């Protein structure tokens, strides 16, 4: 009897250990690993072409240049310069994202030469009339969500973790997001967004990831489809460049005024 007990214990204990990680812990562990793998890129620049499509499929285009600076233990600093539409050319947007407190955001209006502070609770608002909200494009910090791992599966031939995440910041436009995280890259392949009422609102799909500096994965294309309005937005990323030697000085309000 005793022997059998021991055997049972030996059989069960290792399994219990494996089961000790709750789906929440596993979800968080995946997010932490993803964050870790995307740490150390220091700075980057890129060019973004946004194609906005309405219900009838009519297209409008926007061009934006982005510069980013990685900040240790906090959100990144981003400077975005708008090249088109032509009437907003020269408008620049500076944001310091934070994981725990609201982001700091400033907008430079070239016609008035005015730097305007923006109240950053506007995270759920659309970015330049697109299907992307500000919160979809600002840096994704671990602390911005709580997580729950759902299952492992194969998505488009890739092994993925399926993880649900819940925005932990106030003023989010979402109740939850389901993410398909590629096990090799630790980058999302798809995100489904659920609105405040819990309805399926949007689907974001990532395409053509490329690796930079032998480490960091960036997609060439992102497609966001709004299931309620049937409008969609394509983001085409190009000219990714790392090691630009940016410092905090390149992301201050003096640089914002100079940006063009």
């Amino acid at each position, binding site marked *: 009897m005793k022997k059998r007990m021991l055997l049972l214990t030996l059989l069960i204990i290792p399994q219990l250990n494996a089961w000790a990680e709750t789906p929440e812990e596993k979800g968080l562990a995946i997010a932490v690993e993803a964050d870790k793998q995307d740490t150390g890129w220091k700075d980057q620049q890129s060019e973004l072409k946004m194609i906005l499509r309405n219900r009838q499929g009519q297209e409008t285009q926007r061009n934006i240049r982005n510069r980013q600076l990685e900040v240790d233990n906090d959100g990144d600093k981003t400077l975005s310069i708008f090249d088109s539409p032509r009437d907003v*050319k020269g408008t620049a947007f500076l944001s310091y994202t934070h994981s725990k407190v609201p982001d700091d955001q400033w907008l430079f209006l070239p016609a*008035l030469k005015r730097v305007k502070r923006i109240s950053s609770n506007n995270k759920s608002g659309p970015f330049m009339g697109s299907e992307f909200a500000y919160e979809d494009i600002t840096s994704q910090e671990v602390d911005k969500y709580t997580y729950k791992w759902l299952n492992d599966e194969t998505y488009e031939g890739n092994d993925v973790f399926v993880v649900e995440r819940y925005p932990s910041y106030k003023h989010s436009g979402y109740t939850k997001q389901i993410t398909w995280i590629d096990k090799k890259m630790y980058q999302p392949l798809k995100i489904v967004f659920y609105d405040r009422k819990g309805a399926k609102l949007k689907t974001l799909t990532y395409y053509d990831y490329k690796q930079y500096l032998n480490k960091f994965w960036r997609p060439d294309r992102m497609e966001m489809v709004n299931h309620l309005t049937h409008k969609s937005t394509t983001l085409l990323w190009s000219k990714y460049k790392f090691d630009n030697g940016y410092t905090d000085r390149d992301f201050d309000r003096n640089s914002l005024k100079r940006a063009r």
Partner: protein
Amino acid sequence: MLNFFALWTSHNPQYCGLDTMKRRGIKWALTKLIMTFSTSTAVATTALLPTICNASGEWSGNVAVEVRSFAHTPSFSDQHDDYLSISAQPEYFFEWDNGKQSFLFIPFVRIDQHDKERTHADIRELAWIKASDVWELRAGIRKVFWGVTESQHLVDIINQTDAIENIDRENKLGQTMINLALIQDWGTLDFFVLPGFRERTFAGREGRLRTQPPVDTDNTVYEASNKNKHTDLAIRWSHFIGDWDVGISHFYGTSRDPRFTINTDRSAIIPNYDIINQTGLSLQTVVNDWLWKLEMISRNGHENHYTALTGGFEYTLVGIINTQADLGIISEYLYDNRDEAATTPFQNDIMLGARFTLNDVQSTEILAGLIFDIDNNGHLFNLEASRRLGDAWKLNLEIRTFSNINSLNDPLYSSRNDDHLQIELAWYF
């Protein structure tokens, strides 16, 4: 001057390496400058233009048609009911030295159907900027904005108002300057040397929104003995600390706001520009959806001292009624301790406004505001709306009405019959 330019270019191999387009751009910019402004400015700017190889220049800008239609019969016989005008504001920009140096040129011109004064041209910008890690040097003709509030801009003093463009005072004339900014952990410290003074623009005899008699800018009186050649000085410290944006400034020189006197035969109003000292404070903070704003100035000049302030908030409701639209509620209090003797109509007034942003593809925006005078019950209503049409066109609409303006002392008195609608269609390239 042109000879100096020729000399400079022929001795500058980098300049010669540029393509014809860029060379032509620079030459045109400089020639324009020389024709319009003092030789000293031109020498300074040309000399400061350093090596410009690898520059990537580009033209952009806009051309616009504007119609102003007035609701009431004019107060004065020379005035009209409708005014058509066209304007152009091209921009030439190039940067080099990895973005550390840049050159910007923005000329402006408007041609008005009736008002000879409103037909005018200006160089809004013609400037060179060099940036390093801890300082920036900006020289030439530039526009600088200071301040945070919406209803009026008390602290903003570097540039003269191009008042003939719009009574909202947001259009400015280019100002010659050398501006050194020291950029440190404790904030940015800006020093300004401002040689030369620009007079405010005023509507002519045939224009609306003018005084009776009209302002005579040919007989302007200056306190400075060298008149509009006086060199003004300014300094400003600005910083952001957490959720706070702070600016403290001091200006010494010729006031941008004229004091008015009437000439002996009472046929014209004469602008008088005094030498002043003005200290300004601007403060702004974000608390959740609230932006709190304050601007204060203290001014000494013409044996007078006064204080004025504007303070208030902007509260944003995000995604109203389950749409993508935002609604901002703005309210500000405007005060000037000179009371009825103030040269501004806003001495004890409240502004209530709403900013409606559709966040649509066409960037549709509507800003409506009402400023009412607590003492005499006068109202100034203002509506501005804009929408992009296609990719390159923009439609702007403005409505202004003046009501209950009965006091002869009110600076808005002569505009009391000038309620108007303004429609502008602009093409961007």
